[in-house]
């Protein structure tokens, strides 16, 4: 990423209002995004920015999703985060499970498409308990991060990173549930217990806008309480 782009990101971070996300307590797991219990949980609206174009060859993208609503509850040794955002298109597919086997007897499953991208969201937290905001660009060598990625088609994955281009899948997954209704995605992720004050940042990918990788919506860091 060029220097101008980094400056742009920093400006976006300064401009955005830094809200504190209140973590409520609940009696039991709250994975269902449509559960009535979520209505009682305080919701914070995090404003989203588009990342600057990372490649000169990228098509410009408009700001279609201006904010994401986040709610967090602590229950049964976990923190549940519910993200809700408006998205006019549901970019998600049910793909057949593929085997990496070549030849053999099994019927070869056909690939669906080559040029579509799927909706996704992610929560980034510091890898070690810390109140310092790591770099928004996937952390930095002193402040590595963990990323809880949910993809509308491919499910969940825990990733870790210590700076741009270092993101790596850990092989772990986490529990999540999602709904898409009335042009809104609602996703609940089951995170590990987070100490009070842990900063979180959110990213949203809109498949319809060919979002993937660093082409996405992002929020700045927000503290939890």
């Amino acid at each position, binding site marked *: 990423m060029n220097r101008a782009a980094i400056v742009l990101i920093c400006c976006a971070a300064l401009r955005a209002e830094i809200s504190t996300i209140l973590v409520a307590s609940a009696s039991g797991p709250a994975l269902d995004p449509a559960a009535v219990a979520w209505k009682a949980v305080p919701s914070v609206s995090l404003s989203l920015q588009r990342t600057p174009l990372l490649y000169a060859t990228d098509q410009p993208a408009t700001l279609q999703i201006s904010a994401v609503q986040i709610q967090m509850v602590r229950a049964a040794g976990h923190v549940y985060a519910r993200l809700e955002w408006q998205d006019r298109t549901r970019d998600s597919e049910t*793909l057949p499970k593929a085997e990496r086997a070549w030849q053999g007897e099994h019927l070869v499953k056909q690939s669906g498409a080559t040029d579509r991208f799927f909706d996704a969201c992610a929560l980034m937290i510091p890898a070690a308990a810390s109140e310092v905001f790591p770099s928004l660009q996937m952390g930095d060598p002193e402040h590595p991060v963990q990323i809880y990625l949910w993809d509308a088609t491919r499910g969940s994955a825990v990733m870790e990173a210590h700076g741009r281009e270092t993101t790596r899948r850990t092989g772990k997954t986490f529990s999540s549930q999602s709904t898409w209704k009335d042009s809104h995605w609602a996703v609940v992720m089951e995170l590990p217990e987070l100490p009070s004050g842990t900063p979180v940042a959110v990213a949203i990918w809109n498949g319809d806008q060919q979002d993937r990788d660093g082409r996405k919506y992002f929020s700045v860091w927000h503290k939890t309480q």
Partner: protein
Amino acid sequence: MSQHQISMVLDLNKCLGCQTCTMACKKLWTDGDGMDYMYWNNVETRPGQGYPRKWDKIGGGFENGQLRPSELPSKEDYGQTFEYNYTERLFEGGLQAMPQEEVRNTPNWDEDVGAMLLGENYYFYLPRLCNHCTNPACVAACPRNAIYKREEDGIVLVDQERCEGYRYCMRACPYKKIYFNELLGKAQKCIFCYPRIEKGEVKACAKQCPGRLRFVGYLDDPESAVHKLVHVYKVALGLFPEKGTEPNVFYVPPFNPPRQGNYGKSVLDDPRMPMDYLVYLFGEQVIEVIKRLEGELKKAQDGGHSDVLQLLIGRDAHVRYQVNRPELVHIQGVKKI
């Protein structure tokens, strides 16, 4: 920069368009889930739409050192993958074997259509595979460093563990020779049969070629046919040199006799196909290459000996392939893995 560069030269004058190379590759490498539409090696009729459709028109490669914009081809651009009504035809009294869906595009859709020049049809076959470029646009475009060029032989590979399926590589490749396996969420491409090369065996597409038009060896090995054809005899050119990726697959351009008569006449005076088209594919140098080949042909027709034509005949495997070259270690002073 790789220490060695494996390379291929294809003599387009010998290509039959039989697709044996295509099937050799298909059976060996792209016979898995989500790979049905992929032909890492394909043969297309030129002039023609190509595979994927209009790949040569949708950008990619470099311009002034920067990646040029491009598009992702759709599945329909690659061509449909359909089944026939075998059960109905074979077991239920059906009269015709028909595709089970309306077919609007397939790989090789416009086979043998070509184009017209002065009321006469012309075309030739262009076998295509990953060019394992010296300056690969796919490597430059990948934000995850998932694509790499091997030191020992210059083969370009996609690390299937690092790849996240972002498809910047697909877009960047000016030859559109990277494919997306949506089921696995990974980019996949020709691997230059590296497991075979490591055992001193030639690529499957070359080995199976009935026309014996493929020459394989190390470009930096002075004894190899590819080195001689590219650097000594200078009769083989890469596709679209202006795209800046320095391809390592080279072609001996189609060299037809003049359209009418031939005695004492140059093909350039009365060509069977517009030279502009060959210039479009191979750059301005193609005219010099054709003159050079014409000179060699004249030499042979006059009873002389042409090393170039003798090599291009390539009757035996040992003439065409020099892949097992442990002596390169001594030539280059580099340990070959």
